[in-house]
C-alpha cells in the first residue's frame, strides 16, 4: 500500500504539472520520480479533481488530455481483445472517461475497469433474464385471458374487485414526511458533518452518499425520528452529488431534509455540541437529549488518520465515543468501524429506550462474536441445535447470552417463560373445539 500511495502522490504531481507548465508529458514523469519535496505541505488527495489552471495553459493541456484519452481508449480496446476484465468500448461513457483520466496509475485503472466490466456483465445477464421473463409473462397472460373469456362471474383478487384499499407508496411517504416535520419542530437534533469530501476517493464518496441516504430513510422510518441536519455540505462535491442521485428532490424547500452549506458551529451553540469520534478516550455513558451529537459523514476504508478527532480538537468541542468495548465482545472479523446508518439506528434506539444493550443490537453480529467460536459452538453442540434438540426440548438461547453465574447454566434448564399467562393455554381435550369453557377459567 505504501508503494501505491507514493505512486498516487507522483500521479497527482504529473497531473498538476501537466496543468501548470508546458513541459511534455514524458519529462514530467521523469521529474516526478525525484520525490515530493516540492509538494505543498497541505494534504493533496490524489483522487480529487485537479484545480483548473490559468486559461493560457489550458490549450496545451487539452491536446495532452486528448492524446492521453485516445491512448487510454486504445488500452481498453486491446485489453478487451486479450480477454481481460475490461468493458467493451461501447459501454464506456463520458463520465467514465472523466474518472479514468483522473486515475494516477495503471493498476488503479485496471481495478476501475474490472468494476465496470462487472456492471456490464450484470447488465447483460439482467437483459437476458428480462427478455426471458417477458416471454413467460406473455404466455401466462395469454392463458389467463383465455380463462377469463369463459368466466362470466366477478373476478376477485388484487387488481380486481377486492375489499382492500390500495395503499400507494406516496401515501406512506407523506405519512413519514409528516412525522419528520413534526420531528423538526420538537425532536432532539443530530448533525451529519459532510466536510470530509476531500479525504475520500470517489468510491468512498459514493459509499458515503449511500449511507447518508440510508440514514435519512431509517430516521424517517422510526416512530420518533431525530431532527437530522447535514452540515458543511459541499454541493459540488462527489458525496453530495451522489446523494442527489439517490434523492433528487433533496434540495427542494418542501422536502423535509435539512441541508446546510455552513458549519454546525454557526447553527447551534457550541456548548451543546458533542463530536462522536472513535479516536478519543471518553465513553458516552448516558444520552443527553439537550446535547447535539455530531457524526462525521466519512467512509475511511483507506484512511487511517484521526480526522474527526483532529477536527474536534481544533474547534474545542467535547468528544465522546460509543462504549463498544464495555458492552460487546469484539471479534477478530472486521475492524471497529460502523456505517453511518448503523450509527443513526444506535442513537435512535438509545434515545427511545436509554438502554445500551438494545441500542448496540444494530452492530452486525459478524463483527461481535468470533466466527470460528460460533462455528465451533455449532459443531460441538450438534445435540443443541436442530430438530433433535427441539424434540428433546433443549433450549440454547439463554446459553448464548451472557449469564452472571455460569454454574447455574445447563442445556436442560427451562428458560424464562415464553408466555406469562399459561393458564388458558393448556390443552383440554374435553372442551377442545366445542366453544364451551370450563367454569374454573371463566371465574379467573
Amino acid at each position, binding site marked *: 500500500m505504501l508503494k501505491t500511495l507514493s505512486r498516487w502522490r507522483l500521479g497527482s504531481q504529473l497531473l498538476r504539472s501537466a496543468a501548470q507548465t508546458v513541459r511534455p508529458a514524458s519529462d514530467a514523469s521523469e521529474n516526478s520520480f525525484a520525490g515530493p519535496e516540492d509538494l505543498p505541505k497541505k494534504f493533496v488527495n490524489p483522487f480529487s479533481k485537479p484545480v483548473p489552471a490559468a486559461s493560457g495553459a489550458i490549450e496545451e493541456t487539452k491536446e495532452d488530455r486528448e492524446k492521453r484519452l485516445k*491512448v487510454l481508449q486504445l488500452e481498453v480496446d486491446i485489453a478487451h481483445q*486479450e480477454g481481460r476484465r475490461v468493458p467493451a468500448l461501447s459501454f464506456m461513457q463520458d463520465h467514465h472517461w472523466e474518472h479514468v483520466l483522473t486515475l494516477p496509475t495503471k493498476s488503479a485503472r485496471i481495478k476501475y475497469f474490472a468494476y465496470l466490466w462487472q456492471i456490464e456483465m450484470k447488465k447483460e445477464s439482467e437483459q437476458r433474464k428480462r427478455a426471458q421473463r417477458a416471454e413467460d409473462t406473455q404466455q401466462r397472460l395469454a392463458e389467463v385471458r383465455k380463462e377469463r373469456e369463459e368466466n362470466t362471474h366477478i373476478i376477485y383478487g388484487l387488481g380486481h374487485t377486492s375489499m382492500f384499499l390500495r395503499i400507494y407508496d406516496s401515501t406512506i411517504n407523506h405519512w413519514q414526511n409528516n412525522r419528520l416535520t413534526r420531528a423538526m419542530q420538537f425532536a432532539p437534533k443530530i448533525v451529519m458533518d459532510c466536510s470530509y469530501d476531500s479525504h475520500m476517493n470517489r468510491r468512498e464518496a459514493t459509499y458515503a452518499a449511500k449511507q447518508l441516504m440510508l440514514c435519512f430513510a431509517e430516521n424517517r422510518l422510526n416512530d420518533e425520528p431525530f431532527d437530522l441536519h447535514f452540515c458543511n455540505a459541499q454541493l459540488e462535491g462527489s458525496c453530495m452529488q451522489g446523494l442527489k442521485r439517490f434523492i433528487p428532490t433533496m434540495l427542494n424547500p418542501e422536502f423535509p431534509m435539512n441541508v446546510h452549506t455552513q458549519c454546525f458551529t454557526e447553527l447551534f451553540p457550541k456548548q451543546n455540541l458533542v463530536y462522536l469520534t472513535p479516536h478519543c478516550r471518553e465513553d458516552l455513558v448516558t444520552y443527553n437529549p439537550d446535547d447535539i451529537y455530531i457524526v462525521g459523514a466519512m467512509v475511511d476504508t483507506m484512511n487511517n*488518520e484521526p480526522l474527526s*478527532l483532529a477536527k474536534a480538537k481544533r474547534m474545542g468541542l467535547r468528544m465522546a465515543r460509543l462504549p463498544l468495548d464495555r458492552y460487546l465482545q469484539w471479534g477478530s472479523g472486521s475492524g471497529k468501524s460502523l456505517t453511518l446508518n448503523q450509527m443513526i439506528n444506535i442513537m435512535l434506539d438509545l434515545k427511545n429506550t436509554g438502554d445500551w444493550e438494545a441500542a448496540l443490537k444494530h452492530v452486525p453480529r459478524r463483527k461481535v462474536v468470533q466466527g470460528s467460536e460460533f462455528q465451533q459452538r455449532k459443531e460441538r453442540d450438534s445435540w443443541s441445535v436442530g430438530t433433535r434438540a427441539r424434540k428433546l426440548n433443549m433450549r440454547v438461547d439463554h446459553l448464548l447470552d451472557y449469564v452472571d453465574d455460569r454454574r447455574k447454566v445447563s442445556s436442560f434448564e427451562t428458560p424464562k417463560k415464553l408466555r406469562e399467562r399459561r393458564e388458558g393455554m393448556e390443552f383440554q381435550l374435553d372442551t377442545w373445539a366445542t366453544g364451551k369453557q370450563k367454569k374454573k377459567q371463566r371465574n379467573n
Partner: protein
Amino acid sequence: MNNLRLLRHLQHVRYSKCLRWMASQHKRRPQLGQLPPDRLEQLRSDLFERRQELAGDEWLEVRRSLVDGHKHINTHNVDAVILGVCNKPSQLALAKNYVEFLRSQGSEPNAATLGRLLRVYNAAYHERPLSATEQAEILQICDTLQADHETLDASSCEHLIHGLVATNNDWQRALPLLQMVKITSTPSVAAYSALAGKAFSAEEQPENLDLAWRLLEEMASARKLPRCEVYLTLLDRLAKQPSQVPAQLRQLLQFLERHEILVSQRVAERLSKLAQQLPAHVLQAKVTQLGALGKCQACQQHLQPVAISDEQFRQLSECFLERVLIRSDVFQRSSPKEVTRFKKYVERTAPYDCVIDGLNVAYSTGTKKSPQQLAKLVATVVRHFREQDKRVLVLGREHMRNWSKQAMHYVQNNASLFLTSNLSQDDPFLLYATLRSGQDTDFFSRDLMRSHAFHLGPELKPIFRRWQQEHQFSLITQTQTGQIIVKEPIRHRLCAHEAADGTWHVPYCEAYTLNPTESFEVPAKWLCLKLRP
C-alpha cells in the same frame, strides 16, 4: 487437476485450518486472461505440445470449443487466448501456423494477437538465435502495429519491446517505445530488463554500455529491481572482454551500493566464476560470513561504519518535525501548544545520551501486565543506562502518572521525563528529541518506524534508515531474575560498499524477488571482492 489438489490438501491439513483455507478457495477468483488450470493443461497436452501445425478445421474446432465452453471467451478474444496458451519456445511454429490460418480465413489478426505472437518470438529467442526470416517477420509485425496508431498503449508497447529485443540490429527502435509507455504508466521490470540486457550483450560500442547503465539507473530510481539476467549478461560480456573488467565492475558495485540492492545467489556464483577465470591481480572473490562486530572472515577486516555525514544529519533534523509531526494537520498527532512545550523542554534539558520510548518499553513483554510491572520495566531500563552514567530522557503519556509511584519517582529522579497528552502520538517526539541532541544520541524502542520513514519522502528515507540502524536500541526481553536483554544497534553497513583499501563487500540473497520487504537483519551471505583499481 484442481480437485486432485484439493483432495491432497484435505489429507495433509488439520480440520480447523482446512475450513479457513476452503473458505479462501471459494473467494479466490481466477484472473480472466488465463483459462482455468485443468482446461489449459488439457488443451496444451493434447494438442499444442505434440503438434507443430493443425489443419484448418481442427483450428475451427478448437475455437468453437473455447467460445462455447467459457463464458468470458467470445469471438473477439479467442485468438489472443489461443496464442496465450502457445507461449512456450517450442510452439513458435504452431503460433505462426495459427496466424496463417486466420489470414487464410480472410480476417486480419487483431493487435492483441500480434502482440502475443511477438512474445512467442521473444521466448524462442531466449533458447536459440532467430533466423533472418524470423527477424524480418518480427519487423513486419512491428511496422503493422505502429502504423495504425501514433501513440500506442502500455501493453502493446511492451509486446513490441520484447519483439524488437529478439532481433539483432533493430533493438534500438525499442527505446522510443519505452518513452511511449511512460505516458500512461511506468514500464515494467521485464521491459527494462530486456532492453538493458540487450544493450549489455550487443556489439561493442561505448554508447550501448552507457545506455544500459542509464536504463538501470532509471529502473532503480523507480524502485524496480533489475532481474538476474541483466547482471548475468553483463558478467558474460566482461568474461569475453577482460580489459573492461575493472571499470565496469566498479560501476556495477557502485550501482548496487547507491540503491542498496541485494543481488541473487546466481549472480554471486557467476561473479566468483569470473574471478576464477581472470588473473588474480585483477579480481579475487571469496564467499564469506560476518563475525562479531561486522568482521569479514575472509579478509579479517571490519566493515565500514553506517554513520551518516553531518550534512545529511542536518538535513534530516531540520525537515523532521515539519514532515512527520505537523504534516498537513498538527491536530492529528498532537496540538500546537504541546509541540511548543516540548520544544522548550528539549532546549532546556538537551543533550541526552539516550531517549527512551516509555510506552513501547513498558509493553514490550506483553500488553496484559499490571501497571506496577509496566512501570518497573521502564525503571529497569532507566537503571541500565544510569549504571553506565548516561543522561536519559523518557517519553510517555499522561496516564503513566497513575502507575506505581515508586517506580515513577525513580524515573523522575534519575532521568528527564516528558508526558504528552493521552491522545497524542509520542513516536515523533522521540525521534525529534534524539535528532535535536546530536549525532551521538541513541534511542530505545522496538518500533520499526515504518510510517515515519514513509512520511519523510523518498530522498530522506534511506538517510533516516541508516541513522535508525545506527542508533536504535531495542529491548528483547526480561529474564526471570529481572535482568534485561538489550539488542544493540548494528553499527556497520548492510549493503554493498568499499573499504578504504579497495576491498568490496557485497551481500547477496537466495533468489530474486520482485518487491523485497525492508529487512532489519544482517544478510547472512557476503562476497569479499578484491578489485584492481
